[in-house]
């Protein structure tokens, strides 16, 4: 039997939790490295290529429908790769392989959490979303309800999620560029902000999708090569790789089993819920279900997404172990104190050098940076759609907005979001933002997911119930995160956290669902009667797709 290393000191525990959360989107502070021209030129090639795609996409982006959903003309396979691309962020590539490098098995537990939301989306949401919606998830949530309150809620939820996610990505981009290209922080934020504006402004969903597909392909190819090279050194015998890693790693055989990842069962369950249901509530992911022409293609896209994401996490696990064996033993990758040059998140990058030399290192660095670019483009597009489609066209114009006016508002919003993201990215440079991605997942799980779920599946849900419950979930998730360790202690500097658990999801999701249920059954208004009467027609359409819009035109 294994004997556990019980003597982990508190600071190591915090470091572990920090890295694990960091895998979601924050890479922490990094030191600037020497300028890496190979990586910069490869990234430049990527940018030029994607700008050509944007030019082509621009010729196909004339209407609001084309801007939001590429006219519904993306196939299931393409959309699956794009969803996988939205999900495989630079931080999950570098962060999860770093988590495996540091703690072994714990990295696997973390990546499994990110994966298990997908089947649930497939079984309960994907086709219903496709059958009921057109451009944004609010189309689905507000299908039978009074438009204004639900749309205002959905747009608030979307913008809050997008804002936190976007800041985390921007700060990550700035930290990465120092590390990978050896350039200044602010330069990265400006480059990412401007390129993402160009993609979204001119190419809309078509360009965003193709940038995402190309990047997903490059990342999967690069990670496959690394895993292959690592396994090849051990004659494709994983046992030999693990044996060598156990021999080298400071924690010895503890890396082959669960360690400090889970502090208490409540945190474990709560964190698992945030990951599982947060995935089903992220606006930029949900929006992808409207880019395919039918429910059948929507299903296929989640299947492909699940397959690619699962494969990617298997690769990161091998890459992490590969880094233990090939990177931690090589003094060339170590600093004076024995840590990794540039920090632990560099494990995968150093491994790229170890297995493929300088050119491959440049390639992986360029892909890591391109990844951030693709993810922020998707986020910005979903934020812009929430403003132009949900707020402008539906709430202010009561559904009477002309397509070109609506498109104009999307583009203005894109520019505003781009500028705000750049400013906030620079403002948050020195801040500890580890909580931001976890907060985005918690809000998605506690606000957007419950509203969507209840609106589609529960007959007695009403406008009032959905709006109040949704906001309750949102406020609870934000409030509990504020008083948890990641903000209360790490950002605000208080001594002890008021909320003791890693993730608020268990409590905030409960608040959201109970709120929706309670305020719906208590709702005896005239509007509630209309809401409930509308369920039959909604259900028929959600189940059969009869009356739903097909490919293009909408």
């Amino acid at each position, binding site marked *: 039997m*294994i004997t556990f290393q019980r003597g982990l000191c508190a600071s190591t525990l915090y470091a572990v939790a920090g890295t694990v959360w960091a895998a979601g989107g924050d890479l922490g502070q990094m030191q600037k490295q020497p300028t890496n021209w190979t990586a910069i030129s490869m990234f430049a090639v990527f940018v030029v290529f994607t700008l050509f795609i944007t030019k082509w996409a621009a010729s196909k982006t004339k209407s609001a429908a084309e801007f939001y959903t590429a006219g519904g003309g993306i196939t299931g396979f393409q959309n699956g790769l794009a969803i996988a691309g939205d999900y495989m962020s630079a931080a999950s590539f570098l962060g999860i392989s770093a988590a495996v490098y540091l703690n072994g098995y714990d990295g696997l537990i973390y990546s499994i959490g990110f994966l298990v939301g997908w089947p649930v989306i497939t079984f309960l949401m994907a086709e219903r979303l496709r059958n009921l919606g057109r451009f944004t998830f609010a189309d689905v949530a507000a299908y039978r309800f009074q438009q204004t309150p639900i749309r205002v809620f959905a747009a608030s939820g979307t913008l809050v999620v997008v804002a936190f996610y976007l800041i985390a990505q921007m700060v990550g981009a700035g930290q990465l560029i120092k590390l990978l290209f050896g350039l200044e922080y602010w330069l990265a934020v400006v480059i990412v902000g401007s390129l993402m504006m160009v993609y979204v402004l001119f190419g809309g969903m078509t360009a965003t999708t193709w940038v995402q597909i190309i990047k997903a392909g490059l990342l999967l190819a690069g990670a496959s090569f690394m895993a292959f090279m690592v396994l090849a050194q051990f004659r494709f015998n994983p046992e030999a790789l693990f044996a060598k890693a156990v021999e080298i790693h400071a924690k010895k055989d503890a890396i082959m089993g*669960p360690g400090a990842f889970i502090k208490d069962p409540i945190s474990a369950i709560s964190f698992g819920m945030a990951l599982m249901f947060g995935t089903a509530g992220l606006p930029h992911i949900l929006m992808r279900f409207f880019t395919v022409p039918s429910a059948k293609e929507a299903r296929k896209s989640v299947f492909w997404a699940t*397959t690619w994401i699962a494969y990617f996490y298997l690769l990161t696990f091998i890459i992490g172990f590969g880094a233990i064996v090939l990177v931690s033993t090589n003094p060339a990758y170590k600093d004076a104190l024995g840590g990794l040059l540039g920090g632990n998140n560099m494990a995968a990058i150093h491994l790229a050098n170890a297995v493929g030399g300088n050119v491959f290192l440049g390639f992986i660095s360029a892909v890591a940076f391109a990844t951030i670019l693709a993810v922020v483009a998707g986020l910005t597009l979903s934020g812009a759609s929430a403003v132009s489609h949900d707020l402008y066209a539906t709430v202010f114009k009561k559904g009477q907005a002309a397509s070109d006016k609506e498109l104009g508002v999307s583009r203005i919003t894109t520019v505003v979001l781009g500028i705000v993201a750049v400013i906030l990215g620079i403002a948050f440079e020195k801040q500890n933002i580890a909580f931001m991605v976890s907060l985005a997942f918690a809000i998605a799980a506690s606000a957007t997911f419950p509203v969507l779920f209840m609106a589609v599946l529960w007959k007695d849900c009403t406008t009032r119930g959905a709006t109040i419950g949704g906001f309750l979930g949102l406020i609870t998730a934000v409030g509990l995160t504020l008083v948890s360790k990641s903000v209360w202690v790490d950002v605000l500097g208080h001594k002890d956290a008021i909320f003791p658990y890693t993730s608020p999801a268990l409590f905030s999701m409960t608040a959201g669902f109970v709120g929706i249920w309670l305020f719906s059954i208590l709702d005896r208004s005239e509007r509630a009667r209309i809401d409930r009467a509308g369920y039959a027609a909604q259900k028929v359409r959600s*189940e059969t797709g009869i009356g739903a819009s097909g490919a293009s035109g909408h």
Partner: protein
Amino acid sequence: MEEDLVQRIESNPKYRQLVAARSSYGWLLTGMMMVAYYGYILLVAFGKNLLSATIGSGVMTWGIPIGLFVIVFTVAITGIYVWRANREFDDLTAQIRSEVL
């Protein structure tokens, strides 16, 4: 959608068959996924010794195949649902369409 079309679809036996079959299937698979994942998380929380126990004489622990199983299970269960839905459920939907429209 017009009131009478909704009623025509609702009273169509094939529609009832579709809704009943798909919803019970969807919930069944959701339940299985929940059991697999939260079972695994509970094992991580309470059964660390089991996951850290080695298989045979090498360094390989039970945790590795069990973790891989959860990953493969996730992909497989999604594939199984999509496979059935893209045949059976879509066929039924097409029949309903042709009968009511």
